């Protein structure tokens, strides 16, 4: 322990940390902007500057290490003014359209400006003017709102390792963009939306479909059906000011009904369906029909990543569609028949934690009966806004149940929303299908938690089944490298495109006033909400779900049947442009 002085008072702090880390622990939250605990230190915004006695200039507290006897000032008059001026300079080159901006009220820059006390502007001048990129199905890029903190560039290269974004040009003309300033839709963007999560402003936002949806919800001639992904319920409360970790299952169902949906189904049901198909596929592969290790295919960002960055592994990936697309396929066939409606008259809306699902919905190979299976994908953020905008009080609403016959789910379907969940759910069912016995100890600790790459094993009938779980595309790359080098190391690999799995998806609520995007504590609470829902269920294995048994009996036959193949399975192919994952991370 060493002693440092902050604003003249001594504090004992640990050595080897930065001024910012030390100050955080003793109760000084130095203002910051480009800093993110999960990303490399950029030191670019200069908002977190402090005075250090003996240093000629201010130092960036995010990068400067503490040392014995260091005397730090975080709030001197001159420093406050410098910091204020820096934030003003950012504002001076930023559109002044806060009241019409999507991030109004939840914008980090806006909060920062307020807390700096910027009430008068001194240095206004030329502002940047660039084209918005609206080409992507999922992410809208607006360079005018970009303040060049570089968080998106870092998350894209360091965590997701997709390297889609980079700084281009220099100086005042610096812009964050994909290579060649190409439209997002033509780039190697996996549409994961993590850039949106970390962006402090509205330089990245999801492609917004709320207006279209409002319009359709008023259309009396069609049947409006919603499905809700597991992790939406784990996070939507945050958008309404609740602490992370409060599950809002029945409340959303009720809210969606009030918004005008005729039926609200649960993507967890189709998660169970996925387990039936994927589990059976895995057992087939285990018996020599198909390549091992088998890799999951639920995550849309991962699937785009696979096609662009790992086309050599396409055959290893399960052909099972994602739960969303299975649900949509069932809505437009099985359910359409049940309610005797032409699938053309059905609007299938998926409420997802994810921006990549917007891309998945546009994949032509997922069409059913010549129609898009999913008509619209709405993120947690969008639906939260719609609920607020419609004056529906989510916090004080009487909960309702999902509709039948696609609303009942097992606990296995619930935990799909967190990293390791698909694997755990799969093991619960595969074990029984393989051994004929019920797996009793169904909570598999090895593959829970937020370690980048997790490994586990189960013994099925004396056979050791080795599995791996990775979340975030960077970790995915790592686990795939291991598997490439040693193909027999794993039998089954779960990959989720986003850090933490779907609960950390690119469409989840923005971080609150005092929290940071992708904060691990927050992810833990969201995961715990899902694990809690699982624990409270009596049915915790997908194959035990009676509605799953019913749909096979009435409609699909059995897992991997021709009908199931037609509606619940798909295929992937290598995509251009081909992306590069650098061997050495030279991008830092």
């Amino acid at each position: 322990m060493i002693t440092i002085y902050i604003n003249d008072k001594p504090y004992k702090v640990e050595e080897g940390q930065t001024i910012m880390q030390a100050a955080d622990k003793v109760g000084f939250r130095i203002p910051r902007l480009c800093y993110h605990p999960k990303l490399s230190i950029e030191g670019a915004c200069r908002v977190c500057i402090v005075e250090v006695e003996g240093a000629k200039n201010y130092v960036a507290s995010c990068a400067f290490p503490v040392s014995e006897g260091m005397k730090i000032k975080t709030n001197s008059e001159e420093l406050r003014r410098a910091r204020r001026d820096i934030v003003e300079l950012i504002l001076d080159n930023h559109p002044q359209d806060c009241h019409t901006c999507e991030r109004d009220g939840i914008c980090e820059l806006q909060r920062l400006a307020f807390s700096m006390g910027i009430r008068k502007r001194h240095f206004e001048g030329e502002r940047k003017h660039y084209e918005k990129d609206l080409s992507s199905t999922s992410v809208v890029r607006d360079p005018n709102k970009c303040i060049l903190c570089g968080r998106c560039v870092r998350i894209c290269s360091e965590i997701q390792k997709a390297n889609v974004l980079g700084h281009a040009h220099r100086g005042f003309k610096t812009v964050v963009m994909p290579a060649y300033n190409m439209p997002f839709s033509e780039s190697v963007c996996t549409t994961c939306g993590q850039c949106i999560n970390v962006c402090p402003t509205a330089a990245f936002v999801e492609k917004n479909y709320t207006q279209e949806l409002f319009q359709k919800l008023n259309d009396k001639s069609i049947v409006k059906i919603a499905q809700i992904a597991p992790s939406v319920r784990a996070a939507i409360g945050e958008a309404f000011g609740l602490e992370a970790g409060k599950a809002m299952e029945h409340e959303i169902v009720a809210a969606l009904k009030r918004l005008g949906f005729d039926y609200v189904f649960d993507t967890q049901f189709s998660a169970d369906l996925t387990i039936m198909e994927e589990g059976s596929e895995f057992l087939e592969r285990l018996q020599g029909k198909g390549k091992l290790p088998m890799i999951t295919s639920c995550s849309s960002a991962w699937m785009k990543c696979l096609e662009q960055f790992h086309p050599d592994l396409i055959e290893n990936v399960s052909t099972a569609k994602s739960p969303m697309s299975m649900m949509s396929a069932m809505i437009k066939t099985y359910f359409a028949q049940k309610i005797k409606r032409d699938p053309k008259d059905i609007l299938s809306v998926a409420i997802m934690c994810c921006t990549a699902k917007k891309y998945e919905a546009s994949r032509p190979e997922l069409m059913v009966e010549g129609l898009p299976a999913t008509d619209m994908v709405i993120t947690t953020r969008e639906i939260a806004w719609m609920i607020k905008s419609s004056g529906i009080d989510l916090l004080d609403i009487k909960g309702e149940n999902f509709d039948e016959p696609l609303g009942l789910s097992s606990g296995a379907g619930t935990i799909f929303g967190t990293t390791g969940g698909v694997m755990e759910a799969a093991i619960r069912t595969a074990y029984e299908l393989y051994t004929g016995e019920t797996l009793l100890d169904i909570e598999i600790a090895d593959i829970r938690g937020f370690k980048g790459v997790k490994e586990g094993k189960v013994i099925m009938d004396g056979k050791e089944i080795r599995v791996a779980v990775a979340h975030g595309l960077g970790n995915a790359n790592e686990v795939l490298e291991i598997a490439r080098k040693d193909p027999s190391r794993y039998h089954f690999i779960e990959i989720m495109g986003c850090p933490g799995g779907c609960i950390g998806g690119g469409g989840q609520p923005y971080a609150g006033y005092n929290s940071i995007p992708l904060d691990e504590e927050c992810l833990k609470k969201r995961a715990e909400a899902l694990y809690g829902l699982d624990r409270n269920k009596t049915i915790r294995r997908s194959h035990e779900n009676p509605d799953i048994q019913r749909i096979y009996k009435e409609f699909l036959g059995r897992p991997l049947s021709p009908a199931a193949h037609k509606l619940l399975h798909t295929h992937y192919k290598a995509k251009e442009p081909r992306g590069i994952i650098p061997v050495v991370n030279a991008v830092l």
Partner: protein
Amino acid sequence: MPVELKKVSKKDALKKFMDSCKSLPNPESQLIAILHKAQEINGYLNKELMDDIALEMNIPTAHIWGVATFYHYFKLVPQGKHSISVCLGTACYVKGAEEVLNTIRSELKVNFGQTTEDGLFTLQEARCLGACGLAPVIMIDDRIYGELTPKKVIEILNTYRK
């Protein structure tokens, strides 16, 4: 077709250079040298070349693009037959580089980074050509012209127009 042939050999030359880079320690650090080479071969950098470099050297295209746009030296559009660099170093500035520049601008009707309509000249700014004793100077291709006046500049430009 001869045009096609030429294209292939350009690619080959670059490939050969990249192969030699790969045998060095930290090959990815040779990116700037590779871009220099690509520009030398092709006159400017285009998407096709940068894509090739990305795949060959295992460097993301966004990174290559970031580097190519960061440095003044790299050109992203086809260049004129002759490149005119106007030195805007201090010595030249003090001795009237601005006048020279304005003359060239109005004479050729181009700005920095632009190429004349006839494709003959591309105008560029230079930091310091290291010929301060001759200020103000311009460099056309590899040749330096010094102690310029607006009149002299026009005469020089005319010699390239013939």
